[in-house]
């Protein structure tokens, strides 16, 4: 019997193969394009051969930089991840505190929610010059950009998540004799934490965006700094591996956060084993 296409489900193996297919196709298309261009002009820098990409990776990852003596890729990664990590941690903390306060307490919501809503509309890139002027060109301005870039949206998201908790639960807690602090501590916050992780996962992409933008403009190390530095020499053999590396880092961070959430909050994932 023939089913409609919306009702046909791929098996597990088929799904895995299908999932890998676009990656393979992209790789093949690149290898082919690179070969065609290099045949026409061996000096072409736009699409380096896979072998020269591998050589470049070896150079930046395994050989000490001639000027600084550092392993360049790892030094850049460490610098970027430190900025990103601090930024994400501060933004999460701000989002949690503000989200809980505005989500739970009507007076705080009345006072802060409109402000946060407007704040989230400020284009972070537009205030980057201000950050450089105020905080200097050092680490602080980059971290602040990441925080200002993602925290307001996370605050709004968390407020929404807190307000979405069924009011029945809050009433129930009150009929059990809990006061506001106990409701915050035992009922609302534990249920907000997995939602905070969700929010953080969704904001990893924007966080990397703001990090790389800040590094591109003023920095002495970092993944974004490197990409924009070697752009001057059309060094695609460095840029492409860096882009893949950044993507991989973001992907791994997303996976790790998902893993943490499943391990720490099993009740949150029961009955919705998707995504």
């Amino acid at each position, binding site marked *: 019997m023939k089913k409609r296409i919306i009702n046909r489900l791929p098996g597990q193996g088929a799904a895995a193969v299908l999932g890998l297919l676009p990656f393979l196709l992209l790789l093949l298309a690149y290898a082919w394009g690179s070969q065609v261009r290099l045949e026409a002009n061996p000096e072409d820098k736009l699409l380096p051969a896979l072998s020269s990409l591998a050589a470049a990776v070896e150079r930046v990852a395994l050989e000490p930089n001639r000027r600084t003596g550092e392993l360049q890729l790892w030094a850049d990664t460490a610098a970027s991840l430190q900025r990103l990590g601090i930024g994400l941690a501060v933004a999460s903390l701000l989002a949690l505190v503000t989200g809980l306060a505005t989500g739970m307490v009507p007076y705080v919501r009345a006072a802060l929610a409109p402000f946060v809503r407007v704040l989230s509309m400020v284009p972070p890139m537009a205030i980057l010059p201000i950050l450089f002027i105020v905080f200097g060109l050092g680490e602080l301005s980059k971290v602040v950009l990441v925080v200002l870039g993602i925290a307001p949206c996370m605050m709004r998201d968390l407020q929404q998540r807190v307000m979405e908790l*069924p009011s*029945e*639960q809050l*009433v*129930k*807690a*009150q*009929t*059990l*004799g*809990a*006061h506001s*602090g*106990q409701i915050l*501590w*035992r*009922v609302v916050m*534990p*249920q907000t934490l997995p939602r905070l992780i969700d929010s953080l996962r969704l904001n990893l992409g924007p966080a990397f965006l703001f990090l790389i933008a800040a590094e591109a403009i003023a920095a002495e190390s970092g993944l974004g700094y490197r990409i924009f530095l070697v752009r001057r020499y059309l060094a695609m053999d460095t840029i492409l591996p860096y882009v893949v590396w950044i993507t991989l880092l973001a992907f791994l961070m997303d996976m790790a956060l998902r893993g943490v959430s499943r391990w720490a*909050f*099993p*009740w*949150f994932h*029961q*009955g919705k084993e998707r995504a």
Partner: protein
Amino acid sequence: MAALLEVKQVWKEYGSSIVLEKLNLSVKEGEFCTIVGTSGCGKTTFLRMLLGEEGPTRGSLLLDGKPMPAEPGPDRGIVFQRYSVFPHMSVLDNVTFGLEVTRSPLLGRLFGGARRKARDEAAAMLAQVGLSQALERYPSELSGGMQQRLAIAQALIKKPRILLLDEPFGALDPGIRADMHALVLRLWKESGLTIFMITHDLKEGFKLGTRLLVFDKPRLDAQAPNRYGATITYDLAIDRQEPALLEEIQGAVTETSRFNDQQ
């Protein structure tokens, strides 16, 4: 004996629409009042007033001769149709929570011997509702009936004077529902609680309660459906239950239901 709950000439209005009007009621300790009526006849509004979530627009609502507190408190327990239990706590923690919040005023969390004692009490309560086998499970792993048993245990651990049940068995299978009826009746007889239970099912109301309250709109006006509120149209002791009466109430309630449906 003085009445536990006294409702005198209570009106509840939202803007120009009148939900409840001329509500008068006096309930003694230990009564089991079942409340029936169609949707939109103020049953839930009345329950929210008993909880303290809403106040009357006019009239007075007295608990033990004093005005009803303006927010929910531990003397009035509640079981909703859904979302009554905390999804992030195990079955045992859900019940222990009620003890922890009073015994640990700052954190709402007990440690060591005090914690063991509270957990033992909670486990004993859970045994009464038949959940001894599920202490460490999360609510999402329980069936609908088990979740409602948990919600009842959770409410009863606080020894409330009044237990409010808001269509607690509406989403359960018929067989399970009969089990739950037996459970509620047993707990009610053992504890001497005063129970208010909202139900859609008139038969359930007759079966469980000692007193049946029918919320209905005595006047239906197609031109101004919200001009007249609902009130208690029947207030009867259930021992004088007669099939003819049941039919009469069912007829009146269905008429309002059809009227609402056409608005």
